């Protein structure tokens, strides 16, 4: 009770300090007066009476301080005093303040931005309720792309029945291409992208609609009224955020589809499951309709029951896998999922690991790099503060002489550091907010969860933390240094040439060496990443992305009562020939062709065809990715062919032809031992289906630039059913110039053609490379920032030492030293500092680069070219930073230098 009362009283008196001070003043005056009067009555002269009264009182200021300490919050009082003093002294030294705050803003801002990314991808749970219960169920990665990461509808049903670990299992159709939904509002159809999801998709993830409702099981039944759920972004963009959209029906793909709900802003299908691809809408997947026999089409996502661990779920999935059939009508296909890769083909991993696990290492590296930048900024600032402190030695000496304790002075200096880092943090926060907002809108960047990126409470907390830590880091050293100074020395020390100055200089040199070393580590790391990126760009992708573009072609090849598909194949042939003929005739078009899938995008496999007459050995894994193409496609992509291309004559009535890529041919040749190892003219296939190899193509990187090229097989679009049509056009003109003409021509042929995007093939490559590019660019900019900071540090120290030695240099020049000798001596000093830093930095880099080896591509962690280039770069920048003060030193006028001081 008493304690609380007293605490309140203290706070109260802290707030109303001035009136209390005035009252105390009056009280003390009364005290002195009373004492004086009494002394006068005792017979003393008035002057002596007052003197005695003051003596007995014993120090008015001391009493006031004691009084204040007893009644209020002394520490806060002092803090505010320090704060006022700091603001005054910083605003006097405006140039220093601006530079310091700028340095810190850059360092802290970069840290906040990277923290937000890290937080978004690694630290924060996925944006679903109890997201840690969600698992991604798939086999370990194999050669056959998405087809081997997905399951058939039969297998999905069996898994739901036989697994015990899950509250429920859901999934989505993995093979929807971009622009698969044509929205018809009158005029040209507008292309959008929708994904078919199992009806329980939202229940399993725990997503609630922002408006309307989400799917119910009956929405996916045969003959159910077609419904669609649209994304928040599409709702805003395409439907002007129409508040009454729920219940409205639109013509999509020639069908009236009713919008039943709008997804919340926090759920972005693309951001979670297909980074860098915009998904506008979701539709229910009819598990018992046509997709029943499509083969592997469903990705599986499960929600674990409460209390079930991943360790329990893994063996459970393996045992359920033995019941799963690729097709229940083919008993031979039962249990095949269990054997894939020998590791089991049904393995749950935390959904978060699936989504962001691959990025963990890159993010940690980035985080460390940005920490390094902040460290350099702190060292730099420490240096600046030391220089400032040196100039303020006398000030602090004076304060000490007037009774300030060392502690008090250190506290004052730390207050200054805190004010600086606080200001830096605020500016940094603004910087980071801008950076984060910009990043959030990089839709082409294939990073997951990007659209959810924002600065949250955790990031703010992180900001405060690093601001305080930074203040401690850069403020403590100069503070201690100042406080340890000898009072008499500092009052006498005029600065130049005396012991204190030299000691300062040594400390500052050590700091600069540290900075250079840190910058060196950053630069080497970034250099290695940059070299890796260049190596990635250099990879022969098996196609020529420049001067080619692709556009999604809408066509209708349906023919009623078409028993074996040959009628529609014939119709397709006519349509495609017309399209390719018209497009090829356009000026500037070199080649044109159609494929249903493009490399570095979606993919699928149709099993493993084997050389005719040879029985495949057991436990062969992987199968070639399938592309259904027209003549001219490979030429338009710039993929080389040995043998011949598909021709328009390879129709439904003639023998089935395929092209396979070199790697696949080599693989098959191991078993077939073809004459001259030449696959052209050979026959492969499955029982009952012969495929005549007419050509062998270059290896195409179909999943990423970095991975090994897998196996590909190309079928004729007139013999197999393509899943859509991507028209690829190779042109001598910039693709953008051609876009209008191509689209006009397509719409001329088919008025239902949507206003599809004309995508340069290069953008597919860029998209695939974008995460590496993103990390490389960030690392490079951090390294650049580090280098800049180190250069500022070097400049500061050399410049300061030149100023300090003005007199000495003046004497030397008076004794006959030439300008070039002076300049050389300053540069030599610079180089010495830089070289020590570089040597230390290079040593550390060797260790660090080994730690990031996994992020490198075709680049050795100790790549001599990178090391040499970076070392030269730092040395050059250091010399540049030293040259400016060196030039100043050489221009010193001996007369002036000697006369001053």
């Amino acid at each position, binding site marked *: 009770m008493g304690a609380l009362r*007293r605490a309140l009283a203290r706070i109260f008196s802290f707030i109303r300090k001035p009136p209390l001070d005035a009252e105390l003043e009056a*009280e003390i005056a*009364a005290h002195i007066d009373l004492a004086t*009067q*009494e002394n006068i009555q005792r017979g003393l002269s008035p002057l002596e009476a007052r003197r005695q009264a003051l003596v*007995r009182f014993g*120090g008015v200021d001391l*009493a006031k301080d004691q009084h204040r*300490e007893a009644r209020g919050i002394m520490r806060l009082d002092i803090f505010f005093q320090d704060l006022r003093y700091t603001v005054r002294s910083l605003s006097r030294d405006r140039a220093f303040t601006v530079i310091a705050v700028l340095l810190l803003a850059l360092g802290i801002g970069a840290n906040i931005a990277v923290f937000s990314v890290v937080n978004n991808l690694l630290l924060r749970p996925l944006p679903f309720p109890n997201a840690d219960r969600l698992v991604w169920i798939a086999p370990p990665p194999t050669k056959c792309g998405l087809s081997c990461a997905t399951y058939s509808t039969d297998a999905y049903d069996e898994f739901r029945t036989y697994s015990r670990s899950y509250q429920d299992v859901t999934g989505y159709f993995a093979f929807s291409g971009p622009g698969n939904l044509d929205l018809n509002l009158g005029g040209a159809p507008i292309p959008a992208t929708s994904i078919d999801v199992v009806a329980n998709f939202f229940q399993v993830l725990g997503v609630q609609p922002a408006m309307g409702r989400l799917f119910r099981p009956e929405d996916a039944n045969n003959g159910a009224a077609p419904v669609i759920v649209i994304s928040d972004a599409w709702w805003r963009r395409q439907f002007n955020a129409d508040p009454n959209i729920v219940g409205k029906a639109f013509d999509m793909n020639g069908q009236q589809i009713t919008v039943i709900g709008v997804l919340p802003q926090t759920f972005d299908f693309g951001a979670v499951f297909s980074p860098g691809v915009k998904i506008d809408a979701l539709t229910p997947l009819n598990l018992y309709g046509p997709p029943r026999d499509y083969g592997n089409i469903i990705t599986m996502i499960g929600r674990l029951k409460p209390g079930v661990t991943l360790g329990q779920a893994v063996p459970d999935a393996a045992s359920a896998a033995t019941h799963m059939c690729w097709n229940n009508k083919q008993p031979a296909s039962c249990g095949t999922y269990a054997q894939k890769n020998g590791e089991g083909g049904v393995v749950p991993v935390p959904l978060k690991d699936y989504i962001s696990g691959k990025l963990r290492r890159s993010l940690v590296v980035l985080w460390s790099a940005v920490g390094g930048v902040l460290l350099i900024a702190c060292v730099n600032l420490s240096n600046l503060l030391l220089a400032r402190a040196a100039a303020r030695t006398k000030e602090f000496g004076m304060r000490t002489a007037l009774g300030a304790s060392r502690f008090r002075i250190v506290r004052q200096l730390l207050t200054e550091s805190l004010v600086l880092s606080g200001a830096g943090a605020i500016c940094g926060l603004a910087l980071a907010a801008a950076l984060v907002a910009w990043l959030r809108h990089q839709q082409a960047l294939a990073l997951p969860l990007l659209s959810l990126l924002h600065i949250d409470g955790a990031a703010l907390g992180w900001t405060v933390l690093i601001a305080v830590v930074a203040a401690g880091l850069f403020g403590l050293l100069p503070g201690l240094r100042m406080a340890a100074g000898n009072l008499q020395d500092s009052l006498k020390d005029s600065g130049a040439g005396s012991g204190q100055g030299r000691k300062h200089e040594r400390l500052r040199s050590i700091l600069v060496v540290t900075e250079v070393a840190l910058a060196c580590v950053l630069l080497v790391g970034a250099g290695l990443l940059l070299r890796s990126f260049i190596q990635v760009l250099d990879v022969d992708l098996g196609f020529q992305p420049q001067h080619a573009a692709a556009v999604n072609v809408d066509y209708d090849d349906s023919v009623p009562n078409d028993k074996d598909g040959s009628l529609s194949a014939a119709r397709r042939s006519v349509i495609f020939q017309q399209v390719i003929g018209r497009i090829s005739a356009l000026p500037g078009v070199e080649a044109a062709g159609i494929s249903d899938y493009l490399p570095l995008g979606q993919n699928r496999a149709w099993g493993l065809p084997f050389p005719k007459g040879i029985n495949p050995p057991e436990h062969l894994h992987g199968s070639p990715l399938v592309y259904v193409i027209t003549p001219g496609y490979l030429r338009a992509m710039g993929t080389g062919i040995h043998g011949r291309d598909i021709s328009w004559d390879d129709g439904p009535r003639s023998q089935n032809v395929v092209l396979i890529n070199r790697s696949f041919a080599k693989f098959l040749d191991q078993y077939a031992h073809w004459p001259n190892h030449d696959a052209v003219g050979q026959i492969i296939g499955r029982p009952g289906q012969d495929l005549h190899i007419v050509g062998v193509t270059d290896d195409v990187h179909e999943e990423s630039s970095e991975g090994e090229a897998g196996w590909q097989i190309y079928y004729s679009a007139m013999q197999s059913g393509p899943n859509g049509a991507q028209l690829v056009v190779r042109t001598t003109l910039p693709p953008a110039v051609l876009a209008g003409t191509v689209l006009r021509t397509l719409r001329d042929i088919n008025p239902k053609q949507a206003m599809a995007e004309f995508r340069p093939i290069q953008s597919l490559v860029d998209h695939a490379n974008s995460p590496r590019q993103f990390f490389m660019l960030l690392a490079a900019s951090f390294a650049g920032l580090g280098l800049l900071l180190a250069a500022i540090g070097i400049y500061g120290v050399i410049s300061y030492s030149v100023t300090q030695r003005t007199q000495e240099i003046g004497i030397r020049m008076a004794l006959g030293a030439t300008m070039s000798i002076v300049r050389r001596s300053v540069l030599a000093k610079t180089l010495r500092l830089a070289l020590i830093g570089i040597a230390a930095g290079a040593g550390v880099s060797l260790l660090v680069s080994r730690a990031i080896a996994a992020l490198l591509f075709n680049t050795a962690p100790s790549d001599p070219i990178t090391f040499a280039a970076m070392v030269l770069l730092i040395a050059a920048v250091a010399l540049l930073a030293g040259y400016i003060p060196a030039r100043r030193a050489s221009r010193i006028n001996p007369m002036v230098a000697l006369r001053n001081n």
Partner: protein
Amino acid sequence: MGETKLDLLQGTLDLMVLQTLAAMGAQHGYGIARRIEQASKDEVLLNQGTIYASLVRLQQRGWIAASWGTSDNNRKAKFYSITRSGRKQLARDADHWQRLSDVMGRLFDLSEEGGR
């Protein structure tokens, strides 16, 4: 300077002030200080100024109250008086102090006997 004066033990000044106010009624700071000096026959080392820190401490705890008034010789001064809870506190502290001083006294007696 003669004999060195007694340094005040931590916390004893507060008790002296309370006792002075309890015995003399309302009093200003100078009066309290003089009274303590007189009572101690100038044996304690008291900077009169320190009394004010003690006064504000006691006031914040609610043991004394203060108001401005006029002194005997017509000078405006701040007068302090002990409150009810102040008297209770004084009783407790005085008791504590008495017991402590008894213990100390017995201990010193003991040492003198043992010393012989």
